[in-house]
């Protein structure tokens, strides 16, 4: 799942740095994730994992790092995080 998230982040995150240089826990906002890009990323994740982000996950925290995104998506797909 993390690999797929990284792919989507590279495609939609519009980050000024390469996604490979970021650890799973690196702060994406510090890395330059804008609110516009985070919405584009959300839409891509919804499409890729066939989920819909509910209200309580639509906040900065859910998208603060690759690990946070993984947890958010996992909580929706019911997949184990590992």
């Amino acid at each position: 799942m993390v690999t797929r998230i990284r792919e989507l982040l590279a495609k939609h995150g519009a980050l000024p740095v390469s996604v490979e240089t970021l650890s799973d826990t690196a702060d994406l906002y510090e890395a330059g994730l804008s609110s516009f890009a985070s919405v584009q990323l959300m839409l891509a994740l919804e499409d890729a994992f066939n989920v819909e982000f509910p209200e309580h996950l639509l906040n900065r925290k859910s998208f603060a790092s690759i690990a946070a995104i993984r947890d958010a998506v996992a909580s929706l797909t019911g997949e184990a995080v590992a």
Partner: protein
Amino acid sequence: MNEVARAKALSLTERARRAAAVAAAHADDVDAAGRFPREAVDAMKAERLLGIQVPAYLGGEGASTAEIAEVCSILGQACSASAMVFAMHQIKASSLVSHGEGAPWHEGYMRRMAADQLLLASATTEGGIGGNLRNSICAIEVDGDICRLTKDATVISYATEADAILITSRARADSAPSDQVMTVFEKGQYTLEKTHHWDTLGMRGTRSDGFIFKGEAPAEQILPKPFAEIAAQSMLANSHILWSGVWFGIASDAFARAQAFVRAAARKSPGSVPPGALRLAEASNLLQLVKSNILAALQQYDAAQKDETKLSSMGFAVAMNNVKIASSQTILEIINHCLLICGIMGYKNGTPYSLGRHLRDAHSAQLMISNDRILGNTSTMLLVNKQDTSLLG
């Protein structure tokens, strides 16, 4: 009883009304000369209004956003420029109160702010970025214990009158434009080289000139949280609610003038309802809409404050953006109704029904963070966020 105790013993609204009376007496001159509302701000200080938001344990009164919005509205009915100065000061104070607690320097500063009634200014707008406050070009440089910043700040209201400027920048020289911090620079720690002169249609007394800001201060004056969190968790709601409080005040005073006009007309011709009365009823309806919208936002903010996740959520940001859009647009409609009611007496300066200043000041509302920009942000969020369709939330 000393002066401070005397001021605090009166109710907040009573103190605000006394400051508003001073502001009203000078409003036309402040507007005509485009000068800082010195008398009104001195009155706010005398009434101890500048420190009300500081928590009681730091020497303030822990005033709520609702109480502060009410003061904004009372001042707005007297002099919009004075009210906007007060609102902008309180918005900056909210950044300190919400995010400076636990930080020794910022707690000390809040204590001094309350004790000495210090006035805070804001510098988020930057040449090349315009009103996009979540992006900065300039970056703060931290060199050991010292931080330095140069910013092309194209709009800083009452900059030369302020005791401190809270200013945004990128967190480091290699940070992304959206990775920002906010720093408190005190008077004496910066120089201001004037670049733009504030000669505007309205809000002339805010003296929002442009400057090249150059500052150097101890690095501990940088607020300990990323600006993104400050913006989302306190600045967004406080700006939109307190600005709306000021605008509601402007529209309320315009309404009061129109109502006085209609009543005078009714007295002159007993037995018939004056032609402006119907339009006054429409304006009353719109004024109530603005008020309800602000009150709903206050309730929502109050509920969200207990829940940091909610505070940073898209749903909350959408709701606050909508409050700003609605009040900034609706006040123009209200004041226009009032102008039609008062006719030439409203159009002329120097009558009890004059509305020129109200109309010009109110036009700043849709530009102060451009409504188009705000609608753009909201429309992005609505790609994923669902509209709140419940009545009670």
